[in-house]
């Protein structure tokens, strides 16, 4: 229960921050609210308005947001086994497949509890996220110059807070560091939105280099002809 409250407050605040950031990026209130209603996955929304604010074209901006959203497919995979969602309900349930509903569902002891947790968390956060987005967008209009209030720092701070728990292993840290170098290095020379996509290549690049190293080490130490090598 306290967890649910904590998740709710955090999501409400990010919703507000998103509304302010989106309005500051030049999107109308209607466009800002449409994003929260239809996309409903926070990091992708922040990425999209950030790319649009930087002058990115709609296709590269949407591509960055899309790649950030691909993690939800893997959440859906785990949830479909856990919740056994009836076929007709899947298109509706899909909209609620996000970080928070997955975390809550996976923490439940039974399928029944997981289903309730998923539904309650999903509905609550959907209402909260959209209300606070609207408040943030309205608030930004009232405030006027969002930069003078330091609100342009809210977006990157939200990203950093989402990123922090993902940096537990050395591999994750190397990927993040390489992505920063690529993202900033390509920024002055490539059109807006493209450098982020180049930075995403840090993930497969590091995995590939790691795969080569472990494959090399296995060749030297264990000559077992293990079928799993490289798979």
């Amino acid at each position: 229960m306290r967890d649910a409250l904590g998740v709710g407050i955090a999501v409400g605040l990010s919703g507000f921050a998103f509304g302010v950031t989106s309005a500051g990026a030049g999107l109308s209130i209607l466009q800002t609210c449409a994003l929260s209603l239809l996309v409903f996955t926070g990091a992708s929304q922040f990425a999209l308005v950030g790319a649009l604010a930087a002058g990115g074209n709609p296709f590269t901006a949407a591509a960055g947001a899309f790649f950030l959203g691909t993690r939800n497919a893997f959440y859906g995979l785990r949830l479909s086994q856990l919740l056994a969602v009836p076929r007709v309900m899947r298109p509706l349930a899909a909209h609620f497949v996000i970080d928070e509903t997955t975390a809550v569902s996976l923490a439940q002891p039974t399928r029944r509890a997981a289903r309730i947790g998923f539904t309650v968390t999903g509905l609550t956060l959907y209402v909260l996220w959209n209300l606070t987005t609207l408040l943030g967008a309205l608030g930004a209009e009232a405030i006027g110059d969002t930069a003078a209030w330091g609100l342009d720092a809210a977006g990157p701070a939200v990203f950093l807070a989402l990123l922090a728990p993902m940096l537990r292993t050395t591999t994750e840290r190397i990927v993040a560091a390489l992505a920063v170098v690529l993202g900033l290095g390509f920024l002055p020379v490539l059109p807006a939105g493209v450098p982020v996509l180049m930075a995403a290549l840090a993930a497969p690049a590091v995995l590939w280099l790691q795969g080569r190293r472990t494959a090399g080490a296995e060749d030297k130490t264990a000559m077992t002809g293990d079928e799993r090598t490289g798979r």
Partner: protein
Amino acid sequence: MNIWIAIALTAVGCYVVKLVGLLVPAGALERPLVQRLAALLPAALLAALTAQQTFSMNGALVLDARAAGLGAAALALVLRAPFLVVVGAAVVVTAGIRAIGG
């Protein structure tokens, strides 16, 4: 108009990836390499986005008050502060430095 195109593409793309996870048979996405890539991709994107939105302005690299704000957010994260404090620290420090003319 461009903004609406971006919104429509993002809405459809993000919905489809959510739905795919619920519809595909288990196992299709369960290969270890695919799973590891999926775990690392958000880390790469978030790291690049954090850096870009802190150190760039209109396509050029800049160092301004936002860098101090992000530093404050990082410190708050190291101290295990709640989400509100992390974002609040970034906003307050950035605004403060701008107010004193930084």
